[in-house]
């Protein structure tokens, strides 16, 4: 028991967790504890090997480096922390993020940044289907391409895609802003291409700056948004309430 406590203590102090010998639950508890008593701001997670729920629910300004591939829901519900996955990430990376930054050096699976309210998500590779589904204020930069149904019911925030977008981009979109540099396989219901005005160039320039993206010219991007023709946008339907 004593040995275990010592091991845990030293891990909490030097911020290195080896998931080959320690559990994700232990890691997450240690990260959550930082909210009440800050003992370490720089964290390293070794041997993630695709385990799920790594660094979920962090609520403190910490820097967390995950040295390998992460499984599902990595960095979910993140608040304030800067989390980097030095590899690929599974489904739902940074889902429901509130603030902070999540960076994936490789590819991300489906539902990256799903329902996220704030913060910045950068995926340096490709993202799978439903990237930014129901996003509520997060800003997402994908340096590669996104899969089908990305930004489905996107409510707020920006999705910038430097590659291509799959089928049904922005289906049933509310007010999220979508920028795509490459081709769009098809637009979803009520999503249309819109004029790229100076304020949009400005918005995208600022986003790339925040994301540390230096090799993209906002002028090369097209803008997509809601045509506001679906049921919820019709004032006549207000009478139903």
């Amino acid at each position, binding site marked *: 028991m004593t040995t275990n406590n010592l091991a845990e203590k030293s891990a909490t102090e030097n911020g290195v967790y080896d998931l080959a010998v320690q559990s994700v639950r232990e890691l997450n508890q240690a990260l959550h504890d930082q909210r009440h008593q800050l003992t370490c701001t720089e964290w390293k997670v070794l041997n993630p*090997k*695709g*385990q799920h729920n790594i660094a979920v629910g962090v609520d403190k300004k910490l820097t967390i480096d995950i040295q390998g*591939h992460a*499984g*599902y829901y990595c960095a979910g519900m993140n608040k304030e922390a800067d989390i980097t996955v030095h590899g*690929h990430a*599974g*489904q739902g990376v940074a889902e429901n993020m509130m603030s902070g930054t999540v960076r994936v050096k*490789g*590819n991300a*699976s*489906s539902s990256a940044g799903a329902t996220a309210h704030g913060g910045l998500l950068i995926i340096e590779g*490709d993202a*799978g*289907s439903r990237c930014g589904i129901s996003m509520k204020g997060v800003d997402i930069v994908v340096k590669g391409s996104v*899969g*089908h*149904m990305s930004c489905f019911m996107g409510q707020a925030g920006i999705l910038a895609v430097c590659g291509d977008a799959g089928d049904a981009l922005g289906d049933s979109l509310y007010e999220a802003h979508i920028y795509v540099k490459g081709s769009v396989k098809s637009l979803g219901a009520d999503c249309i291409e819109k004029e790229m005005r100076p304020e949009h160039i400005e918005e995208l320039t600022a986003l790339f700056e925040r994301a540390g993206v230096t090799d993209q010219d906002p002028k090369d991007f097209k803008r997509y948004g809601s045509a506001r023709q679906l049921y919820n946008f019709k004032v006549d339907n207000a009478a139903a309430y």
Partner: protein
Amino acid sequence: MCGIVGLYLKNDKYEGELGKLFTPMLIAMTERGPDSAGFAIYGDEVTEGCKLTLRHEDENFDWQALADEIKTSLNTTVDWFQNSKVAVFKVGADAESVEDYLASNHHDVMVMSAGKSIEILKEVGLPEHIVDSFKLSQMKGSHIIGHTRMATESAVTMEGSHPFSTGLDLCLVHNGSFSNHNRLRQELKREGIEFSTENDTEVAAGYLTYRLQQGDSLNEALENALQTLDGFYTLTIGTKDGFAVVRDPIACKPAVIAETDDYVAMASEYQALTTLPGIENAKVWEPEPARIYVWERGTTH
């Protein structure tokens, strides 16, 4: 839920270790499917006649007597070995005549697979127990696909577990569920396809068998399956020379593929791939929806 895994070797470097490499992959998917597990391994190919994987509920069943009987009745050669409740029979005659003989004379013997190379082994229980009982880690071969089951659409039985045989040297594992399997089963029964369970995957297997009987190539059969099968699924299909992977058009069920110079591996989750040699530098990606991926020796895809 369910977990599926596949490992296809591009060259002979790891052929002696196929079972050893695959064992931790299957066990890693226990959380996705703890109630049954199975695998189809390809190797030890017969040049003449056929190879059948047979199963009898009684572990002490007299396989030697059955081998002698087949030898005499079909005037052929039989070489066999037992592995748990299963016996692998290498028979000089063609698969159809052996299967017909067994159907007429030995209802209690179940044919798990037939072909030149395939052996299907599956049971109810935890994946780690099943790989132990079949001594998977000692097996050799060119490729293997496997499944860990969490039953949703039918009972937890050996018959309902995967892989399902879909014809000579062909089999199927599936993660997901089909919503039109009842109607499709009725239609296929009218076409003469037989079913032994209420399982939805068996219907998908039966559908592929039917399409292949109609003269479809594997690729055409899978194209037709994408049109006909309604539901959410990731399928992995084992063939004599390799395997194929296909996801439903909206990609509800997970799949990840890793490729190196030596192998192609697929799994429901990346966790199942972490023990493979050179995985750190493998190309890792997610297969696209409604796209058919095929890796076979002697063909490029």
